[in-house]
């Protein structure tokens, strides 16, 4: 190939990658919903669990605390912040304890007797009215007179106030300066329900920014500090930390790789050329994911690039076999069967994830398989034409020769390999501890100090439990609300017994239509009410005729149709009801949030008494889901393992060679699992993916060692290639293993241990006997 044609090829290659990259960048949407990495729901129950995990009111709840030296300033800021947050559009609901009857919209004023439970236990008769009017006289003589007087002609029973009070949380923090304060009296407290789902880190990030802006605009005092806590705030925090650390580790490993490659090949062009297959792989992988799925998850992106990092090894095999007088194309042709076997078998392993039933993993599979295939093919067909002739031959290295010789001298304790494998299997089978980690939270743990703070705020605010939730299901809203009403006295009894500290349920804000209609029917007609009122007024000092607005309101209420969920649109009540009463495709779901659950069993018993009601333990349910999902993935991997053996067998066509190639990888996998178990590390999905990655690497090492079996020079070149490959991989993943974040550490440790073990075992088990190495 002439120099010009070489140049043209290089330019065309780079241009193709750049253009494809540009198109991908323009069109690919990067998603962030973490539920993409959760199992796809198969039963309605599972779907509900997944919806609640990410979208339930508790997962959207942010607990806010404003603290500073001057409580009055904190209170003023609390009020301004609440108004700003309500106006920002990022929040469904903001509560800070402020309440006044004016907060109930005019359109709902006449509905008060239908919404308030007063008529359930008393009638608007002369006796009740007299008692109420006597109280009002006392109110007028009290310091609260100025507050209540304007409402009395319209609402002598103070129904609006009762309604507003009943909508406040059952247990709420103390009020100072009209807003909620912590017990210390130093921090103003707020609760906000975000519009973004708790499992949507991008939405939560946007919300967090809006919150900070609103606080900066609202604060009346530079010394004030805002804290926010809750699932959304934590997901933003953890994402930042993960990204920050991954970035730092990424930069460090790129730097290390460049140094390593320069030392190994002493050529800048080789360094640059070595990157081309990897870049092509990344762009092609993204394009494939984009075409199939439309969006790519941020995790797929980050994780996928880690996985196709293996592709960096492919050109290295080519480079390490370069020597004077050898056409790289011929060398590539010679290496291809081995390389192709490695690529194909790794792809087979990743294909298992395509059938895992987890969308995020399916994306990852498409990305990795496409990427590795492209990297393999470009290394075979494009790269060799571009590789400059090398004056160095790795086989000339005396040190490599001595090293190979020393390795060949080592005993080959095949029986030890078998014994180790058996020991590992026996240990894992007999150990009583669970092998797997089912708690997703364990992978991105929140610092204990923040958790303690969260639970303290939750306690003070009486905020709902993030773990337990009562779910009421039925075909229509009316039946759900009816069941919620049946549940109400039972829950109240649980609170009285101390099983529960509090609860919230949709019928508190919107009673079932049948209940509203019953209350409406209990409203006396105009004449009866007037007569009762006159009788009641007889003994009080109220002026005659001042309660005409009250009589008019009751007359109006008698004509009102009962309210349904749709009628509340645009009112402040809508915000409350919309998170507790949800319409799914063909049915309605009501949620009762629980606060301070001391005995989940007792709550479950109560739930069992109302048909269609279940106590959801989100932690338990999600752990079950994870276990379920893992079982399926393991089955897929088992099938993949069989396919992998078939691929390798098809390539090598010799049982002994197949055994030699597969032994290091199989033993490594067993050893790592046993080692992790022995050191108390529970395995997660991320360990599993990392184990597949490590197995793929081990397979490559073994294949190349096996390939070089007969020729001493080839053995040295192969040793050079595998040393460079394994060192670069080890460098990247050992850095990752230093991470403080368990998810990154899990991947780093697994792969780093896998590289070392695979390298050593490949040398011990796969390299030829002294006889053949001769």
């Amino acid at each position, binding site marked *: 190939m002439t120099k010009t044609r070489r140049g043209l090829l290089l330019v065309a290659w780079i241009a193709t990658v750049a253009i494809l990259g540009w198109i991908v960048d323009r069109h690919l949407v990067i998603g962030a919903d973490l539920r993409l990495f959760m199992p796809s729901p198969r039963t309605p129950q599972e779907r509900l669990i997944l919806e609640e995990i990410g979208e339930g009111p508790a997962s959207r709840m942010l607990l806010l605390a404003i603290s500073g030296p001057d409580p009055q300033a904190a209170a003023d800021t609390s009020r301004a912040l609440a108004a700003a947050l309500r106006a920002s559009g990022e929040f469904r609901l903001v509560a800070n304890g402020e309440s006044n009857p004016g907060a109930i919209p005019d359109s709902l004023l006449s509905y008060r007797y239908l919404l308030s439970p007063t008529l359930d236990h008393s009638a608007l008769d002369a006796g009740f009215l007299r008692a109420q009017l006597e109280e009002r006289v006392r109110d*007028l*003589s*009290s*310091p609260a007179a*100025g507050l209540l007087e304007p409402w009395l002609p319209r609402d002598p029973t103070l129904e609006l106030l009762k309604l507003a009070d009943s909508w406040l949380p059952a247990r709420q923090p103390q*009020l100072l*300066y009209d807003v909620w304060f912590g017990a210390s009296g130093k921090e103003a407290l707020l609760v906000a329900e975000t519009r973004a789902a708790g499992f949507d880190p991008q939405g939560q990030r946007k919300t967090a920014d809006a919150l900070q802006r609103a606080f900066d605009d609202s604060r009346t005092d530079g010394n004030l500090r805002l804290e926010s806590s809750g699932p959304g705030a934590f997901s933003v925090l953890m994402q930042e930390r993960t990204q920050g650390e991954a970035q730092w580790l990424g930069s460090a490993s790129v730097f290390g790789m460049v140094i390593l490659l320069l030392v190994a090949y002493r050529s800048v062009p080789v360094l640059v050329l070595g990157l081309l297959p990897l870049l092509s792989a990344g762009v092609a992988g993204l394009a494939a994911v984009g075409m199939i799925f439309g969006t790519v998850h941020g995790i797929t992106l980050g994780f996928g690039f880690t996985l196709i990092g293996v592709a960096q090894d492919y050109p290295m095999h080519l480079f390490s076999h370069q020597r004077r007088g050898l056409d790289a194309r011929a060398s590539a042709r010679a290496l291809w069967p081995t390389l192709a076997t490695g690529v194909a078998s790794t792809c087979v392993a990743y294909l298992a994830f395509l059938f895992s039933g987890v969308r995020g993993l399916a994306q990852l599979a498409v990305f990795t398989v496409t990427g590795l295939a492209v990297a393999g093919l470009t290394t075979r067909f494009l790269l060799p034409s571009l590789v400059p002739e090398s004056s160095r031959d790795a086989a000339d290295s005396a040190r490599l020769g001595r090293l190979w010789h020393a390795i060949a001298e080592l005993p080959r304790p095949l029986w030890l390999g078998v014994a180790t494998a058996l020991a590992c299997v026996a240990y894992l089978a007999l150990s009583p501890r669970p092998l797997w980690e089912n708690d997703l939270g364990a992978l991105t743990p929140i610092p204990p100090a923040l958790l303690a703070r969260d639970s303290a705020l939750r306690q003070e605010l009486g905020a709902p439990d993030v773990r337990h939730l009562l779910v009421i299901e039925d075909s229509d809203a009316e039946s759900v609300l009816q069941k919620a009403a049946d549940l109400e006295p039972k829950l109240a009894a649980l609170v009285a017994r101390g099983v529960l500290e509090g609860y919230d349920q949709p019928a508190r804000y919107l009673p079932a239509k049948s209940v509203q209609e019953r209350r409406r029917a209990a409203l006396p007609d105009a004449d009866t009410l007037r007569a009762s009122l006159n009788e009641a007024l007889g003994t009080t000092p*109220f*002026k005659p005729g001042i309660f005409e607005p009250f009589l008019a309101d009751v007359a109006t209420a008698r004509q009102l149709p009962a309210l349904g969920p749709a009628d509340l649109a645009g009112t402040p009540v809508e915000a409350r009801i919309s998170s507790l009463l949800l319409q799914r495709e063909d049915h309605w779901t009501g949620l009762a949030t629980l606060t301070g659950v001391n005995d989940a069993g007792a709550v479950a018993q109560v739930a069992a008494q109302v048909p269609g009601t279940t106590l959801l333990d989100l932690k338990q349910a999600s752990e079950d889901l994870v276990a379920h999902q893992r079982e399926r993935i393991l089955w897929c991997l088992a099938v993949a393992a069989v396919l992998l053996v078939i691929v390798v067998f098809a390539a090598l066509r010799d049982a002994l060679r197949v055994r030699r190639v597969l032994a290091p990888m199989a033993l490594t996998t067993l050893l790592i699992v046993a080692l992790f178990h022995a050191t108390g590390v529970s395995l997660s999905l991320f360990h599993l993916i990392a184990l597949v990655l490590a197995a793929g690497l081990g397979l490559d090492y073994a294949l190349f060692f096996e390939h070089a079996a007969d020729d001493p020079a080839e053995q040295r070149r192969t040793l050079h290639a595998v040393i460079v490959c394994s060192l670069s991989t080890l460098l990247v993943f050992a850095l990752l293993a230093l991470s403080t974040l368990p998810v990154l550490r899990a991947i780093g440790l697994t792969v780093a241990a896998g590289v070392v073990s695979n390298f050593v075992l490949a040398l011990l088990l796969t390299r030829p006997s002294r006889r053949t190495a001769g």
Partner: protein
Amino acid sequence: MIGLTLTAAPLHAADPDAAALLARLARPAPDSTSFVEVRYSRLLEEPILVSGHLEHRKDGSLVRSVEWPFQEVTEVHGENVSVTRAGSRPRRFTLDRAPELRGMLTSFGAILQGDRQTLEQYFAVSATGAEARWEITLTPRVDKLKRHLSRIVVNGVENRPQCFTLTEPDGDESVMVLGITGPEALPTSRERGALRAWCTDGNRQ
């Protein structure tokens, strides 16, 4: 002191008589006195009467205990007010939502503490009468107060304030008479005019 942070209106020199008078009225906390309050409301045909004790505590809080004709305790701590009536849940609110009460407490507290500065921050102060029988009229300066409070008139004898009369723009009025234990000490007519005259004349002891 209550509401110090609200506004800072320029200080006007009060009537020299008022200044001297205010200085004499100061009483150190803790202090407790009995009261009878008569409240005229536009919703009511006749005024409501209650009696009880007012207590000014050392920590600056004020407690108003109604003992007749029913039991009710109001506590004011800084900005926060709670009203507890026997048999029902406390009603809590802040002075921001009860400007009449803020006006009343400010004037009352400032007079008890001899805090002319606070008084003049919220009110224009004028005084008439002599040392033996005097009248101080407080007219709100602050808009927020003006909307809910027309004036407060304090009548007293020597160094004792006896009547606090609070008039609202809508005509509602409350008269708090200090130092008497029950309504029997009041004039038999509960007409506003009669009570006003009784306060102005100081015709009791």
